[in-house]
């Protein structure tokens, strides 16, 4: 009986965004578009809950003849997709309608927007639940294709440029990942014989220890570089600040909060297989090293930013780098810290981009220096920006501080993994702490400058309540609440997922 319910939930999970996407092309009028959108996201979240419960009961769920595979790790990612997706949908209700009302876009183009948005969601869900590494690759490339026009949606010169850059860089990066998938298949065929299920995660996990280490090593390097481009790890990050600046606010929130997380998930999946064939120090070292470089460089770049959206973009690179360090170092603390960091970052960053969207609409500028006195101009947004800013700067009561501390602790106790030499401990920890102080100071300095100070006189003061404020409120409350206590069920889920990673 449970089997049927789960199969039904899985099909809803995939069908809801897919059907809603095509449906969106047909409906006239923004009202019904938003209704469709919210229905589809609501269905998605409901289906996720059913699936997560089944995962708790059985450990993992497979459906449709092993095409779908969901375990605790995928459930965490689905949780992030659902929550941030729901928040974005609510926010879009006021954001997109205002853009139509102001005549920035024709109301017909809303259909296209929602179509692409749903295809984006569908591709991400598929990448998370796919059992085959090949299907996962196809889905992640599909996210690139769906989002490139979302990034270039305003059709200004800068946005076209950002969209083109994103399309080319990510497609090329992802092509390298495909070579990695081919090599992975090559190695597994030698063990499993010529079967089409040889790319399935369930199959690979069983035979992972017998795979040839040379091939798996090469495959993992290609996969890591490819999906790392999508995560935005330095030095493959150059598309990211442009894309986040030019994309409409809800899209930027989805890119920063969810897409990066899905790409990290793809890397973790491949790592789980590679680790059994080659020494975990090899994959861990690669992850931690690139994570540390991204973290350090992004922290320095944060100091140089004069544009608040770019500031948030570099902070994304920074936090993803930190999570990578956590996963790379591994162990129970490192993996839990990394996962928890992903979740917190997704919430805080989407809140930050919602606030940025509100500020941009009112001030008509992305320059930090020209935004002053948010407390009088947009009081609610000011609170949201402050909460997300403090959380992203990893100030103590917030959960991002807790996860950052877990990662630092893990790094300090086991050191940067390395295949040939003794793990280095002191230098990475010092570098990490130093850069986090730099990022903390730079970030807070910029944010506080925007929140306080005398407001410019030529701008309308006061903020009207709208639907778009509901997700801002909720995300703010969740961020504060997570810093005090994590709900038992979520903690259990994260722990189950980090055990899977540690194994």
């Amino acid at each position, binding site marked *: 009986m449970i089997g049927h319910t789960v199969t039904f939930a899985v099909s809803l999970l995939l069908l809801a965004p897919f059907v809603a996407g095509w449906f969106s092309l047909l409906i006239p009028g923004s009202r019904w578009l938003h209704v469709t959108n919210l229905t589809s996201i609501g269905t998605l979240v409901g289906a996720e809950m059913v699936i997560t419960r089944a995962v708790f009961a059985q450990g993992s769920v497979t459906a449709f003849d092993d095409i779908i595979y969901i375990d605790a790790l995928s459930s965490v990612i689905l949780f992030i997709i659902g929550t941030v997706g729901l928040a974005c949908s609510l926010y879009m209700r006021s954001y997109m309608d205002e853009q139509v009302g102001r005549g920035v876009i024709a109301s017909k183009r809303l259909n296209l927007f929602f179509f692409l948005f749903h295809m984006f969601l569908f591709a991400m869900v598929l990448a998370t639940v796919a059992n*085959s590494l*090949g*299907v996962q*690759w*196809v889905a992640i*490339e*599909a996210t*690139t*294709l769906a989002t*490139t*026009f979302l990034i*270039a949606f305003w*059709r*200004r*010169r*800068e946005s*076209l*440029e*950002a*969209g*083109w*850059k994103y*399309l*080319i860089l990510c*497609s*090329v990066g992802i*092509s*390298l990942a*495909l*070579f990695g*998938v*081919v*090599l992975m*298949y*090559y190695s597994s*065929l*030698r063990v499993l014989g*010529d079967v*089409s*299920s*040889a*790319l399935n995660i369930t199959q690979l996990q069983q035979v992972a220890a017998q795979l*040839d280490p*040379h*091939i798996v090593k*090469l495959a993992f390097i290609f996969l890591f570089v490819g999906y790392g481009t999508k995560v935005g790890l330095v030095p493959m990050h150059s598309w990211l600040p*442009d894309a986040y*600046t*030019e994309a409409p606010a809800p899209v930027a929130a989805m890119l920063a909060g969810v897409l990066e997380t899905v790409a990290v998930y793809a890397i973790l999946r491949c790592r789980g297989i590679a680790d059994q064939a080659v020494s975990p120090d090899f994959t861990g070292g690669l992850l931690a090293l690139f994570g540390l470089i991204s973290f350090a460089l992004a922290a320095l770049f944060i100091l*140089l930013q004069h544009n608040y959206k770019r500031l948030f973009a570099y902070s994304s690179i920074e936090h993803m780098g930190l999570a990578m360090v956590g996963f790379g170092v591994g162990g129970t603390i490192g993996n839990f810290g990394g996962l928890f960091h992903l979740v917190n970052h997704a919430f805080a960053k989407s809140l930050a981009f919602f606030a940025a969207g509100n500020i941009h609409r009112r001030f008509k500028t992305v320059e930090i220096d020209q935004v002053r006195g948010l407390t009088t101009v947009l009081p609610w947004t000011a609170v949201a920006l402050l909460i997300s800013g403090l959380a992203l700067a990893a100030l103590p009561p917030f959960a991002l501080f807790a996860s950052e501390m877990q990662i630092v602790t893990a790094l300090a106790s086991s050191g940067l993994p390395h295949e040939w030499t003794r793990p280095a401990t002191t230098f990475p920890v010092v570098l990490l702490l130093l850069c986090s102080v730099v990022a903390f100071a730079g970030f807070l300095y910029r944010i506080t400058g925007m929140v306080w100070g005398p407001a410019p006189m030529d701008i309308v003061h006061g903020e009207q309540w709208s639907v778009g404020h509901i997700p801002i409120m909720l995300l703010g409350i969740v961020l504060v609440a997570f810093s005090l206590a994590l709900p038992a069920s979520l903690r259990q889920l994260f722990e189950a997922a980090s055990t899977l990673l540690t194994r």
Partner: protein
Amino acid sequence: MSWLTPHIGTQIVDFGSAMLLLTCFAIVAQRRLSACVDLFALQSLFLAMTAALVAFLTDTPHIYIAAALTVVVKVIVIPRVLKGVIERLNVTRELVMKVNVPASLLICGALVMIAFFITQPIIPFGHLLTRDSLAIALAIVLIGFFTMISRQKAVTQLIAFLMMENGLFLGATAATYGMPLIVELGVFFDVLVAALIAGIYTNRLQDAFDSVDTTRLSELKE
């Protein structure tokens, strides 16, 4: 067919892969955009023939499907779209190059050596029929990567991307006698959509910047 011994089969597959690599060099050396498109179509044709040969020699019917899709998508549809784009944009030549043609060719030669060097340890594990094609496939991917960085016209960058895809397809055919069919179909879908999207982009870039020279895309500098 008694004359088609495995040995001769290997020779023919190697020959096909070498032709793919040769067209890569021709694309790198070619400045005229429409000739680049023709060369890409030719390369895809070689790819389809090599794949079909592998399918015939190893008796794996699903590679025939992939080969047929290659002909439809990469020999017919995408080159037509690209020709249309070139005609509309009224650009015919790659004028300024970051790296000139002789230097590019030398670099590509070095990339081929690197590809053989990287794949050296894993080649002996491969099927006898196609083991050398894996190195050639990686070489094509790397050359595509390099062309993407060193050329400036959006159309050339797109061709370089498609060249990388060809290399990947050759790699998949050589190393594993083709990916599972569902993956193969998904990849074809993605490549087709990517090419169409890039085509739309070049039109919009032309409208917005009055140029498809991607060096003009520098408004988003720090």
